[in-house]
């Protein structure tokens, strides 16, 4: 199958491409950008006039809910949702049921995901068994089974001795630990940012200090052990400052922010909107501004969807009892484009946060249009506005705080290994 993508505006931050060029694909690989190779005869030509052509997106955090929670979502639905959103590679956290702490489970997940032939799935294995923060999971075995890094999902490692050993062990093999910074005692039973909204609504708060305290431990131990650490879903201004300082000190630390937190604050909870029950909690305008500033100055490396599909019933409950999370695979692109427009950030720079940068963090071959690499490509119209209709999302989870929003950035085609896997 040979494909010619014609007249598109190609943006590839990694290779510094930002201009109108044609792309030529053969045998699933990117054969040439610009000039047609000698004798190239396309089986199919895609007219990309008015479209942006970029690498398929890379998502650092997408829950697929398999194994064990198929009533919330399934690989089939979520991988369809991923490619509908232009995402061609994603990392999934280990908080499935059972937890991804055994090589067999990881192999099974990889195998099943591959059968769909849609987005590439890169599991993150559990750092500790059952995510309990006590005994280390078999990281080396899990790596061999296909894990690209190790995570505790939303769980903390409270015991600093265990955290220290986990980092030492991961550093031995050069593995990256993906950690969510939230001190669990201070955050216990909390459901919203500990501020004026939680006070008004009578919701138990999670203070910003919970993030700062956890970060302080993680960064200090990372410094001692030399471990590579990625902080998942930073949420506070103070957290951004701490990461900035850690990077200046030369620590091997990276971090991401969920796209939800670039658009929403505690005030969006309004009258107990359970779709705004997220982890970390939505924080203040000041925090939101600091997260954007962190992306602009390079403190924050990437934007993730934090895709967390939840079944309808689990959200129809009083706020504190409603299950945490928002669906996000199909919204990562439009929300990032919208954010970039609002903040006057060049599209190429914005796309780097959802392509090249996350691919680098995962150390996977994705996120760019490099010659001879897999033709994982997303073609979208940056200026077409579309209305988010939760019921129409491909994801089994319809839980989104953005239902009814008009957003720019409509995905038109997604290619994985040179195959058109999505066309709108």
């Amino acid at each position: 199958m040979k494909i010619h993508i014609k007249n598109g505006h190609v943006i590839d931050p990694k290779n510094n491409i930002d201009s109108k060029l044609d792309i030529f694909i053969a045998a699933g690989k990117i054969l040439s950008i610009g000039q047609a190779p000698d004798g190239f005869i396309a089986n199919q030509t895609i007219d990309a006039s008015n479209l942006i052509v970029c690498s398929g997106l890379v998502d650092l955090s997408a829950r697929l809910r398999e194994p064990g929670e198929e009533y919330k979502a399934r690989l089939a639905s979520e991988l369809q949702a991923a490619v509908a959103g232009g995402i061609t590679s994603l990392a999934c956290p280990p908080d499935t049921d059972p937890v991804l702490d055994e090589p067999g489970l990881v192999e099974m997940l990889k195998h099943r995901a591959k059968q769909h032939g849609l987005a590439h799935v890169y599991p993150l294995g559990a750092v500790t068994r059952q995510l309990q923060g006590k005994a280390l999971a078999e990281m080396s075995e899990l790596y061999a089974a296909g894990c690209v890094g190790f995570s505790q999902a939303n769980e903390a490692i409270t015991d600093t001795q265990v955290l220290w050993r986990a980092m030492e062990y991961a550093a031995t093999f050069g593995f990256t630990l993906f950690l969510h910074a939230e001190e669990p005692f201070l955050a216990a039973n909390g459901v919203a940012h500990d501020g004026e909204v939680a006070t008004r609504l009578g919701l138990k708060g999670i203070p910003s200090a919970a993030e700062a305290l956890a970060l302080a431990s993680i960064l200090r131990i990372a410094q001692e052990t030399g471990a590579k650490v990625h902080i998942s879903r930073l949420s506070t201004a103070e957290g951004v400052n701490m990461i900035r300082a850690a990077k200046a000190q030369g620590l091997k630390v990276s971090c991401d922010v969920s796209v939800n937190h670039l658009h929403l604050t505690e005030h969006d909870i309004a009258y107990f909107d359970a779709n705004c029950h997220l982890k970390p909690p939505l924080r203040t305008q000041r925090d939101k501004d600091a997260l954007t500033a962190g992306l602009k100055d390079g403190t924050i490396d990437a934007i993730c969807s934090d895709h967390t599909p939840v079944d309808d019933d689990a959200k129809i409950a009083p706020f504190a009892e409603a299950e945490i999370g928002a669906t996000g695979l199909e919204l990562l692109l439009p929300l990032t484009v919208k954010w970039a427009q609002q903040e006057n950030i060049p599209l190429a720079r914005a796309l780097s946060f959802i392509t090249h940068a996350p691919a680098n963090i995962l150390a996977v071959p994705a996120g760019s249009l490099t010659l001879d690499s897999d033709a994982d490509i997303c073609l979208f119209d940056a200026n077409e506005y579309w209305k988010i209709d939760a019921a129409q999302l491909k994801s089994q989870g319809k839980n989104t705080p953005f239902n009814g929003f008009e957003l720019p950035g409509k995905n038109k085609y997604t290619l994985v290994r040179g195959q058109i896997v999505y066309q709108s």
Partner: protein
Amino acid sequence: MNNPQLDTDGHLRHLLSIEGLPKKILNQILDTAESFAGVTEREIKKVPLLRGKTVCNLFFENSTRTRTTFEIAAKRLSADVISLNVGTSSQSKGETILDTVDNLIAMHADMFVVRHAQSGAAHLIAKHVPPHIHVINAGDGRHSHPTQGLLDVFTIRKYKPDLHNLRIAIVGDVLHSRVARSEIHALTTLGVPEVRVIAPKTLLPAQVEKMGVHVYHDMNEGLKDVDVVMMLRLQNERMSGAMLPSAQEYFKTYGLTQEKLALAKPDAIVMHPGPMNRGVEIDSSVADGKQSVILPQVTYGIAIRMAVMAILAGGGVQ
């Protein structure tokens, strides 16, 4: 976002929280209650405003006073009343809140009076019910207890009619108190110039001052020259642990005694939403003393609840 309590014409559709209600509606409720206060003193304590309607008391959390006064209020309006202690039946069998509500709607309930341990439960039900059904929040978690807030200002108005000239202190566990939140909103909306909260830092929620109150940690300073002292209940489980070391120490520092009350204005009134912990937040001599209006609060609670139900049912008599 639309205020879920009001219909498109700005009339009260549900009573979920004091917050977000205009002064006009609060006054309408208080004035209507004034007219009902007379009914409760008549020989035949009934008016036919809710005849043929079914009021359903849906209590997912236990209550005696609130449930009973709602029941009496509904009966005085000639409604049929069903009271369910759901906490002890369906919920323990795993039925969701909305399933319970749907079943009662199928039995033609017209109005729900809801209490639940989680903040936002009444909002959830209000969002779910068809347009002809009204929901009254009788307490949701730490969030709101609007009829209590209203009966408290009703009581204050009885003793101190000029709300624009008052200094009021709310004392105790504001952090966990839906009553305190409702009182604060009611008082600030109705134009009370100075509302104070007095509590140790462990019992105050974050940024409470953004609700429009002055924060005090010392009773001697906070009670000085106030016209009204509103005490809050301290739950047993908070009396010792990480919030407070002991009930004794709490009584010494924040319990209302005659001595501390003497710092307030000589004609200050003392209020408490009940149930009281005598010797913990309030001394018996104060609770039963001449400045206490704690029992009148209970009586006025009936008139307020009648007023709210009558207005929701479209019969806001004047």
